[in-house]
């Protein structure tokens, strides 16, 4: 059976997955609320609908970050080796990148959570 989990690839791009998810989540949240208020949609759609919608977006973003973190953990060899991974070898480079990606995923996870907290408390639009 083919696993849905991506196989291990060696590229620098995976490092940016979690921060990219955070940035997208940030833009989606800000833009949605701003457009909702600026267009005066409050009379047609309740703010709670927006809140739930953005809650789903937040859950998706967190799931993607967790996946990115798991892949990074795998790349790091599930923590079998301790940092700083500073030898000039291919293996050390891979482990270092895995560890860095894992830390960035943690940071992005917290950033997305903090971004979501105000959305719980926003009362509505101010004309």
């Amino acid at each position: 059976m083919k696993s849905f989990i991506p196989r291990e690839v060696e590229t620098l791009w995976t490092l940016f997955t979690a921060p990219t998810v955070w940035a997208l989540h940030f833009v989606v949240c800000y833009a949605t609320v701003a457009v909702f208020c600026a267009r005066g949609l409050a009379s047609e759609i309740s703010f709670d609908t927006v809140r739930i919608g953005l809650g789903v977006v937040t859950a998706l973003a967190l799931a993607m970050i967790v996946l990115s973190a798991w892949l990074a953990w795998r790349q790091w060899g599930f923590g079998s080796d301790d940092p700083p991974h500073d030898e000039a070898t291919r293996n050390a480079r891979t482990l270092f990148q895995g560890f860095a990606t894992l830390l960035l995923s943690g940071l992005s996870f917290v950033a997305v959570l903090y971004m979501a907290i105000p959305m719980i408390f926003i009362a509505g639009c101010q004309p």
Partner: protein
Amino acid sequence: MGRALRPNVRLTADGAMGACRMDDDRLTGAGRPIRSGRDIGRGGYRPAIRVVKFFLLFPLLASCSGVQSALDPAGREASDVANLFFAMLIGGVVIWAGVVVLLFHAARKRRSYSEKGAGQLILWGGAVFPTVILAALLSYAVWLMPNVRPWFSEDMDVRRVEVIGEQFWWRVRYLDEGGAVIFETANEVRVPTGERVVFLLKSPDVIHSFWIPVLGGKMDMIPGRKNRLTLQAEKPGTYRGVCAEFCGTSHALMAFTVHAMEPEAYETWVAARRKASGGQDQEGLALFLRHGCAACHAISGTEARGAIGPDLTAFGERGSVGAGTLPNAQEHVARFIRDPGQIKPEARMPHFSMLEAAEIDRIAAYLKGLR
């Protein structure tokens, strides 16, 4: 002749009033001069004396109360702000103390810890703990926000006051239900207690910021925009508001008096203020008009309808002269008329030192007598 008063009151470079001593000068800020180095620490104290002196400063904490202290709230919004401040302060002190204890422990460590243990400490103490604490503080602050900045749309039935910040004074207009101006006054804001008041904030020149620390947070007044701020006073009293955004040379001399009044007293004042007239003292009024004061100033019930400067109706009741600069005494009014620029640098009012001292005194007496 006109100089006789000058040596008594002078404005020094650091804004402190020289020999000016009035009974209640708190409203003008004259009672809280910026201390120069000459007052404290003159000569060489020995360290022990310094330490004693430092502890003697502790009673100064009592000055956290007062007419202009956000830590001594008299309004609903301000008490939320104060609670937030104290929650942050106590939390910050506890964390700081913990870090200091850890620091001392590390500096005199008797036993060594494994690298793994140190890693655990960094993970839990340096990453997880701050994340949880910051999340809690963020939630608390965001949860408070609707209380600190309550929102009322303009068509709702709330009392509205329009405040316009100008260099370097405050134009205050009380509005009726329809939004029409009932009357205008200056450098003084009166609010009833136990009731929400929406302030509509504007500026024709530069950015100012409207701040009554005992009642709530500050809000900028931005040219071309109309900002709103809602405040609710709970404790009756006389307070002080200030401009909280640097707006020019006399920015620090741009303050106002705030009277939080019982609702009945407030209604009585509004009724009295609507009927106020400057026509009782005809001789003083004639002098006021003859010297052109009416080109800029208005006094209700008279021909004076100038709109450039502060409205002077019922000036005698005001808490200060020159927007919170000097206590409201006749000699200060006379000094201000003679040369406003000496008291408030770059004020737009021209000097009137060409007038006879007796005439200036007479106009000052007239203004001081306005009710």
